[in-house]
């Protein structure tokens, strides 16, 4: 201990304190502050970047999910539309078919009626002509004018009516 005290130099203590404090303040201003600020800033920015990346990744994932959902929805809608179109097409075709059938039926019916009418008319006419012919023939054959011609023709006509051409 005595040796330590005798070794103690006031001058060295003074200079050491002075120089150390000078070094401390100089380093604080020119080295420690910029270094620690930069290191802290860098760590913060790394943290931020990592967080941002994480956020971006999550966002991407969400976007992808929503994209998928949208796609599925669209696909479903398309399927739905297709299905609807298909049924509609079938309906239209069926309807058209039915309508056509009906129309055809109608045309047929009307044609048939027309034919019938024409036939009837023709028969009527034929009947009349036949009556006239037969009357004339009979007149010629008999050679005499039948009396009461109208009465005769009426009887022929009624006879003819009894004949059914069908």
């Amino acid at each position, binding site marked *: 201990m005595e040796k*330590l005290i005798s*070794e*103690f*130099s*006031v*001058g*060295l*203590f*003074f*200079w*050491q*304190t002075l*120089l*150390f*404090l*000078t*070094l*401390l303040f*100089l*380093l*604080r201003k*020119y*080295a*420690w*502050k*910029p*270094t*620690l*600020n*930069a*290191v802290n*800033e*860098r760590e913060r*920015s790394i943290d931020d970047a990592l967080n941002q990346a994480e956020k971006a990744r999550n966002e991407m994932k969400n976007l992808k999910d929503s994209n998928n959902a949208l796609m599925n929805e669209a696909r479903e809608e398309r399927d739905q539309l297709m299905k609807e179109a298909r049924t509609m097409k079938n309906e239209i075709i069926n309807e058209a078919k039915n309508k056509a059938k009906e129309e055809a039926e109608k045309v047929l019916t009307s044609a048939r009626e027309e034919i019938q009418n024409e036939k009837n008319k023709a028969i009527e006419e034929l009947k009349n002509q036949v009556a006239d012919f037969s009357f004339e023939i009979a007149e010629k054959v008999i050679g005499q004018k039948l009396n009461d011609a109208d009465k005769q023709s009426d009887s022929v006509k009624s006879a003819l009516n009894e004949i059914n051409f069908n």
Partner: protein
Amino acid sequence: MYSCTRILIPYYLRKMRDKVCYILILMIIVLLPEFLQASEVNENAEASVSLRDEIKQDILHHLQDVHDFHLFTDEVSGTHISFPLPIILLDQGVQVFLSSAFHHGESAAESNGKYYVLHHNHIYRTDADGKLNYDEDHHVTNIAPLDFSITKNVFSVILLSILIFLMFKSLGDGYKKGLVARGMGKFLEPLVIFVRDDIAIPNIGKQHYQKYMSYLLTVFVFIWFINLAGLTPLGINVTGNIAVTFALAIMTFLITQITAKSYYWKHIFWMPGVPFPMKIILAPIELLGVFIKPFALMIRLYANISAGHIVLMSLIGLLFLFENWFARGAFFGLALALSVIELLVAFLQAYIFTMLTALYFGSAAASHDDH
């Protein structure tokens, strides 16, 4: 015979035998001159005693602070290769002159009509003849003026402070271009981060560590670099000086006490959580601890560095003391190994000093809500 044994002895044994052979040959080479020189050793006994004293003097001299920067001495011509340093004395005004005026303690130096003599690294005021007076115990009775000289240690501190400042300023300047360290800063930045993450934050806590960072970093870097400089052949021994470690320890002590909060004082004078009589017993012990802690810091650094220098110099001294090459080789190896250990000690002591300083700061900065 070699080829014969080659067949008979399995490979691993052969390898071992080869090793033994090498060692034997080595021992013969080393020890042969020893046998030849055996007769000479006795004649040299007297010379080696003086050499031993010389080495002892060299070691003791190295541990002390001196007034010139001594590089080496040419024993043959007796010339010292050194450069002088300024002497600053407070003796009825400031006396400034160069240490070369002492002529290595051989004559008195004159300054403003006063005469001074350098005796065992202390400066005394004398008459013009440079005569020293002694008392019965062989102590010098001349007046010793207050010595504020730029001694070898002060000079070393100035040089290393400039070096440290320039190095770490380049680190700080590097951040002007971006957030990444540039050049030498790439090596220095991890030191700063080491002090922050492994010394300051674990011991002081994230809340309070920032205001102590400048001191912790400076203390760490200063002690480490000064310790490393002590391992160069320049023979600098700054941290093995009690005044230097005292200056460092007293700063730690003062900062601890100044920044201490009521919680710290409460733990010293009125320890919470212990029974009443224990509070009274603990108070003086804790108060003593306040002073013992920095005292231990001072002694630890001083003793470790001094001891390292003494042992290393002794081993190197032994190299010259032994005439035999085997011993020289062994001491060379030992000195080399110790130098490597001293490199570790240089770092370790800087780390321990800074770590304990941070620990004391941590106890000073702690407040009740930290727990």
